[in-house]
């Protein structure tokens, strides 16, 4: 190894390279500002509009307070959250073992899975629902329950969750990890739980986030099946009181951002959390 001599140490550090390295080209800044404007201007407009139209003496957050006071808001919001969580749970229970198994034992089926996973992109939601309605009406016990929305949203979220899990499994040497665990005496369920799932944490969180976003924002199907979910409520309010509708849109933004932040933080702490989980096992 090269030795650092006293002469080297005494030599003044040349800052030109650091300055050159740290310099950001002006085009990068321009593109960044333009991109930021595309996103921020509509949001700013939404916030400004939601604070407008307030009578003198009223709180600037009048429309937000009005919305929060409405029992229909609370019920529709919680219904959407419930449906979103159910969708995530059903999607993960269905997809994680399936994608794991296809990657591990049936890699020849991966092209088929790829094809199936893009079908919800190809078939528009309205077509899907029109096709599903006669079927759903035959199973009336399900038709009248909001859980039916979860089942439909599982299909809508399929491409996003599948892609996330697929990318996560491609990023690890699945076969070697599974065989290593088996050689140490573990059966497949334990291997999946203790070895594979902790290493898929980022993929699961990313896929779940997209699933929540889809479930929380879906309007067409919920409206056709006459469930008063948050998007349906937002639309109805928006048609009667524009200010309240815009306030609701912003609340929806905030919720999705908060969900993203929470999942990001959860994912960032994933490794240490996984290690704790392993230590606590048994």
């Amino acid at each position, binding site marked *: 190894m090269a030795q650092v001599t006293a002469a080297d140490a005494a030599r003044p550090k040349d800052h030109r390279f650091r300055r050159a390295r740290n310099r950001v080209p002006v085009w990068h800044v321009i593109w960044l500002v333009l991109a930021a404007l595309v996103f921020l201007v509509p949001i700013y407009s939404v916030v400004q509009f939601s604070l407008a139209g307030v009578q003198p003496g009223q709180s600037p957050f009048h429309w937000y307070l009005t919305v929060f006071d409405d029992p229909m808001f609370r019920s529709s919001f919680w219904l959407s959250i419930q449906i979103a969580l159910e969708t995530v749970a059903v999607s993960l229970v269905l997809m994680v073992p399936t994608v794991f198994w296809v990657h591990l034992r049936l890699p020849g089926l991966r092209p088929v899975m790829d094809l199936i996973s893009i079908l919800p992109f190809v078939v528009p939601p309205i077509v899907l629902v029109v096709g599903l309605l006669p079927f759903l009406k035959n199973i009336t016990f399900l038709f009248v329950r909001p859980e039916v929305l979860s089942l439909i949203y599982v299909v809508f979220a399929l491409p996003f969750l599948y892609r996330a899990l697929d990318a996560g499994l491609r990023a*690890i*040497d699945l076969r*070697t*990890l599974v*065989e*290593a*665990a*088996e*050689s*140490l*005496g*573990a*059966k497949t369920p*334990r291997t999946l739980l*203790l*070895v594979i799932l*902790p*290493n898929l944490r980022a993929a699961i969180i990313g896929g779940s986030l997209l699933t929540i976003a889809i479930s929380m924002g879906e309007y067409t199907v919920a409206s056709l099946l006459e469930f008063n979910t948050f998007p349906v409520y937002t639309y109805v309010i928006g048609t009667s009181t524009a200010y309240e509708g815009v306030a609701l849109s912003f609340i929806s933004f905030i919720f999705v951002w908060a969900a993203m932040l929470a999942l990001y933080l959860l994912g960032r702490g994933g*490794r240490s959390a*996984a*290690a704790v989980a*392993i*230590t606590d*096992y*048994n």
Partner: protein
Amino acid sequence: MATVELRGLCRRFGNVVALDHLDLEVGSGEFVSLLGPSGCGKTTALRIIAGFEWPDSGEVLVEAKDVLGQPANKRNMGMVFQAYSLFPNMTAQQNVEFGLRVRKQSHEVRAQRARELLELVGLGSALNRFPRQLSGGQQQRVALARSLAIQPSVLLLDEPLSALDAKVRVQLRAEVRRIQQELGITTLYVTHDQEEALSISDRVAVMSQGRIEQLGTPAQIYSGPRTAFVANFVGTMNQLEGTVVSMEDRVVRCGPLLLSVPDPTFNHPAGETVELFLRPEDIGIEVLSNGTQLVPGQFEGRVTSLTFLGPVTRVGLTTDIGPLLADVSSAVALNLAADTVVAVKLDSASLRSIAR
């Protein structure tokens, strides 16, 4: 520790024959290497023993009991893989403890065993490091410790050093051997690196096309290859073609030379064409200066190439019996250059013959 016996193992992948009636016996505490080129079936054999592949026919006996009916997680065999196989979400200690946790050992027992084994592989200070914080060599040491933690009946190593750089590889293979001898564990080691196989094994099985070409101690494999494949695969060999002049006297004509083959197993009738093999280190050369006469047993050669290998230099020669490679001391090689005329002498005591 257990004995391992493979009986008539066959395995095909489509039209490709991976194993062709493979037979092998590994004694208790023995270190046997399966050595061969890519595609010779060595990894398939190891994976069948581990329970990750199944043969089309044949038996795998461990302690005289057929284990083919058992899944991999019931065979109690430690395995170290070619690819880095540590669980990324666990520390080195948690990795080593994994097999014991599956066996529902107490936390104290697990922790103590993990510490002992990590000490054994020289990583006692890396208990809490995650795989991403370890070098490739360190990861394979942890993988070795993890495979030993379950006190396996057999240790299977599938090219565990092939992803490491040369210096670490040499260092780690010595440690693998030391640990194996210390624990006396029956070990099967798959490698395509002949130097690795010869340096750490009790016996080496040289494989080709799903079969064992030769099984023997490293010295037997190196000095007494029984097939042309083994001769060519293990080390560097000069290969000469000759015709048997006398079976009783074991004399072969090779170009203008009459060579006496010392191999006691020589059993080729007069007139048969045989191949003679000789290591480069068994060929001596001397610079022929003006007026120097060849002595009996010597013949003339001309230097065509010089390859510096450190302590020795490999000299390429053209001779009347064909091209030859000879290893000479690098100090001697200083007197050589391309087109230097030299006197060549074969150490006929090292000649090996194989019928074509």
